[in-house]
């Protein structure tokens, strides 16, 4: 794909492609802006793997914003991604108690956009928490509920497939079973989630 460069996509096209779940758009986003983040992270005492983790998180932030339709860009996509990546990496650096920053790009300086980025990151943190909590809840759910829900919601198996895989007599039976599992998961998840 690198060799056969597709016509350069604009930021909007990239974002639309990302929302549609296009691998092309994702690859483009990766190729276009990863070097910038890589350079930033390695310039600030990080490794290549750190950079990959950071950029992955950046793209998750972007992806989830796009999917929920709440993305409002008031600056260039490049600046947005750099600023998000910068904040995420600085947070990690703070945990490692290093405070020197060497910028390789100009981060967002506008007051309003800065606030927006902070909001986006706060939102991202909340989603992170939900994600971890969900993983934890699923784990505590135990078998066969965990696999059942995973198959249906994550692997997107059909109800028919699931009926066969788990040896239920019919799909209704499987649906009832799924519902029961879901209710147990709900209790586990919300008891934790609302406590916080």
């Amino acid at each position, binding site marked *: 794909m*690198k060799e056969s460069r597709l016509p350069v996509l604009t930021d909007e096209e990239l974002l639309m492609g990302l929302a549609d779940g296009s*691998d092309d758009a*994702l*690859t483009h986003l*990766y*190729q276009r802006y*990863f*070097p910038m983040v*890589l*350079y930033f992270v*390695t*310039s*600030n*005492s990080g490794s*290549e793997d750190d950079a*990959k983790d950071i950029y*992955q998180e950046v*793209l*998750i932030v972007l*992806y*989830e914003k796009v*999917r929920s339709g709440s993305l409002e860009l008031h600056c260039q996509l490049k600046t947005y991604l750099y600023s998000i990546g910068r904040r995420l990496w600085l947070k990690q650096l703070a945990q490692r108690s*290093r405070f*020197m920053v*060497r910028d390789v790009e100009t981060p967002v300086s506008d007051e309003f956009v800065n606030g927006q980025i902070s909001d986006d990151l706060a939102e991202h943190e909340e*989603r992170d928490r*939900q*994600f971890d909590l*969900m*993983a934890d809840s699923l784990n505590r759910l135990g078998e066969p509920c965990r696999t059942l*829900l995973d198959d249906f*919601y*994550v692997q*997107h198996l059909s109800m028919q497939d699931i009926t066969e895989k788990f040896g239920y007599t019919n799909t209704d039976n499987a649906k009832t079973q799924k*519902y029961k599992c*879901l*209710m147990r*998961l*709900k209790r586990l*998840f*919300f008891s934790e989630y609302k406590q916080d």
Partner: protein
Amino acid sequence: MNMDEEKDIENALRTYSERIQFKQRLARIQASADVSAYPVETEQSGQIRALWRTYRTTLAVAASAAIITTFGSIFLYRSYQQSHQQEQQYRLLSKEIQAVKYSQRKLLSDLNGRGRALSVNPAQVSGSGFMLTSDGYFVTNNHIVLGADSVYVQSTKGEVYKARVVYNDQAHDLAFLQLCDDSAFRPMPSVPYGFNARPSDLGERVYTLGFPREEIVYGEGYLSSGTGYRGDSTAYQVAVGVNPGNSGGPLLDEGGNVIGIISGKQTTLEGVSFAIKTNYLLDAINAIPAEALKGLPLRINRKSALANLSRKQQIKRMQDYVYQVKVFKHKE
């Protein structure tokens, strides 16, 4: 309600699964992307570069501190050296004065009749001295007559008398001579100036007469300190321009009292001269053994006869009692 909660948990689950899938996609793309294609990245790897990047600021601070220290030290050393050189120049200058003085004296000795007779060993020293009593007792500095073979004194009128060293007081740098050994000397009218043992006050107007050259030279100034060189309490510091040859000259106050004897000056400072206090002169006179004086004690004039005279009159009266001392000795 129940449906809502079911929707909530389903949504949460969907979000969860979406993220998992997105992560999987990303991981695929990351794996397929040729990381080494980014030139930035290959350049960046390497521990030394990472270290350099981390400690660059610290290094910069350390380097500038080192530079400042280095140049600061060099600058300080230079300025120290310069001041040191100046000091050396002063020393050189004083040496030159010594040399000039020496050659001058040599020249003077050639002009002098008696000197010419002794020109086989022409190493001479000259200074000043003055009469203590009218019958030929005379005082000068010990350093002038030190190691002398013969001592002559010459008046302003050009009369030369041979003198005998009666007594040396090395501690106070005083020497007492007697002129009456020379038959040519006739007792003079009594000395016009008095010897005042009272300590003089700072700021006292003083003057001196001496022989820095073949002619008598007048110099005036003021008493600037009650102690001499390096706090020597037996001397005064006076601001009078004196030159080699002035040594042994009298230091007089306005009333015509001898308050000291010029003995030296500080070469490194301008206008700083020293004079031995008169009361030490009187002490030294009392210490002269009676046999050296041939039984006749010195009668020192305590009261100045010049008190009411103008400075010019004082000098006119005095100058007959101030002599140039010429010393001949074998060269070592």
